[in-house]
């Protein structure tokens, strides 16, 4: 009897579980728990230090390759990185190889450049989307103007103050790629290793464990992983944003998953031995 009831409970319609998740995730958005992220992983710290140690006026290239489908994880990360670069008065260049990211880049710079009074063309430049990442990465090793002669609005870039003295990877201090795709692998293999340029990354939590080997060999100079990473970076630059509030909202949902795994496995054991 009990066994049958347990069976029935175990085979509960999964839409009840869906509803449970919706509630556990939505409630903290309306009423934050107020448990901020405190720990900082060494990989995130390495990215931070790589930017922090640069003298003002160094050129940093951001490759922002994420579209709205991974926006909640990667947009806070990219925002924190750009804020950090601007607050250190670094010169910023932005490239992208995902068509869907152009809108997010516009949004990011419209907001952050105003916070730091940075001028397009003077302190930063946004290059247009290009389809063939390998060709562009290879081209930038000798002459970036061969592909990027204009910025995304069609303004010629060669005489922009921000690009003064910048011609190839040799003139860039560090490259940070924020992506949910394999594009960071391309940066490591086709640029970092091939031309000896420091490459750091920001990725979704899904791909984060996969970059362990590159981090260990220092082929990757640091890695920000997922929303936790974004929250960590935000606390490093002391500007809490969407990452910090996001990790707060995830608290209950994470525990829900663990509870569900436990429940189902205990139920199964009970069913088997009753």
């Amino acid at each position: 009897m009990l066994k049958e009831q347990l069976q029935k409970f175990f085979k509960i319609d999964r839409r009840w579980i869906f509803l449970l998740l919706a509630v556990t995730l939505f409630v903290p958005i309306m009423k934050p728990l107020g448990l901020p992220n405190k720990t900082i992983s060494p990989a995130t710290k390495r990215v931070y230090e790589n930017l922090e140690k640069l003298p003002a006026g160094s050129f940093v290239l951001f490759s922002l390759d994420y579209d709205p489908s991974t926006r909640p994880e990667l947009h806070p990360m990219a925002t924190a990185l750009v804020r950090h670069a601007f607050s250190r008065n670094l010169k910023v260049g932005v490239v992208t190889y995902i068509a869907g990211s152009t809108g997010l880049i516009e949004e990011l710079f419209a907001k952050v450049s105003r916070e730091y009074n940075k001028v397009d063309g003077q302190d930063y430049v946004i290059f247009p989307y290009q389809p063939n990442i390998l060709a562009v990465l290879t081209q930038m090793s000798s002459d970036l103007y061969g592909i990027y002669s204009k910025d995304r609005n069609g303004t010629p870039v060669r005489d922009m103050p921000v690009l003064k003295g910048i011609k190839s990877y040799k003139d860039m201090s560090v490259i940070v790629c924020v992506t949910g795709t394999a594009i960071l692998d391309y940066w490591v293999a086709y640029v970092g290793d091939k031309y000896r340029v420091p490459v750091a990354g920001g990725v979704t939590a899904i791909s984060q464990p996969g970059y362990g080997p590159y981090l260990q060999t220092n082929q990757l100079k640091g890695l920000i992983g997922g929303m936790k990473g974004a929250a960590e970076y935000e606390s490093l630059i002391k500007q809490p944003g969407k990452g910090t509030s996001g990790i707060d909202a995830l608290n209950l949902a994470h525990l829900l998953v663990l509870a569900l795994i436990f429940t189902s496995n205990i139920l199964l054991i009970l069913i088997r031995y009753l």
Partner: protein
Amino acid sequence: MTKNKLFLFAVLVIFTSGSVCAAAKKAGPAAVLPGFTAEDMPYDAGEAVLLRWPVNPAAAAGTAYEIYVSSLEAGGWVKVTEFDAAAKTGADIGLPFWAWNGTKDEHAVKVELNNLFGNFPPGAVFTCKAAVLEKGALKAESLPATIAPQGNWFRLDRLNNLIALLGLITVFFWAVSHAKRKGLFIRRIAGLDAIDEAIGRATEMGKPIFYVPGIGSMSSISTIASAFILGEVSKKVAQYDSHIKVPHYDPVVMTVCKEVVKQSYLEAGRPDSYRDDINHFVSADQFSYAASVDGMISREKPAACFYMGHFMAESLLLAEVGATSGAIQIAGTDVEHQLPFFFTACDYTLIGEELYAAGAYLSKEPMLLSALKVQDLGKLVVMVSVFFGMILVSLGAKFGWDGLVRVVMDLFKGY
């Protein structure tokens, strides 16, 4: 020609020494920095020069060097860099031992000329000099050295890479010819027994089998391997007179699979049981595909589900429905971040290369076999070199054999 060059050189020396004297006059008497040479930077496109001179062990603290380069015959000095007397030795140039003989006893500075002078014509001559400063005051200066940088034809530092490549190509062609003639040994993979078992169970229960080839195109290795495994599975199915269904995502994969299944039924001696609707097209959209296959699985309650090939997010959706409908599930994919879901929800999972190996094992197709052999050889090289490299480097570090450590580390470094 040589005469001309000599003449030019003489003129240069006269002019530059003149300017040195002029400079020296201003700053008081300065000694000459001995042993300063300029040479072409090796293994580059001809845009850099390399300056070398011996380290002065007696240099006082606060000593610094300044490097100047000029593209003119006289004057026009451009300051390149300034660094501490302890920095930039021959050991800091990141080149391997077979391509570079610099040591800690000399300074070696690479100067990128195109950064300073833009694009210059090939054969252009540059003059370089170094100045020694002690607490900001000029102490000594080198004689100017002239150099015309040249483009090189081979990156000797990438020799280890080239050797690895040549080795790979040789083994590959050997394996191809060998596989065609005699076949190559591949061990049996544990998951393959599970396949037989699953088909047997489906026959007993009289329920269908689902074979999901994933969302890869025909160009991905996993899909190719999957098609070969499908051949073997459908042969067994035909023998046992069971039912199989193969829902498709990619029309091209579907055409290939149709041929494969048909052939298997023929080989099993049951061409009469073959039906054209075994392979059917579902949808070319990821989520619609997953949803439709889910629907089929939960309606028809198959006895066994196979998920072999390239899977993305839909792995989760498929494996869960299969597990709750009570089917024996066997999965295989080379997409690492989907493997956890398959592993927890399926009875047996072929991990990464095991999928390729299963395809090669079952089909004995020379192309798959030879690729797998090259992969095996690569893994063997890695295992052996990690093992011995670890021992050698540890010994070297323990007993202070720096040379040994350097040789091993240089060998396994990408340049």
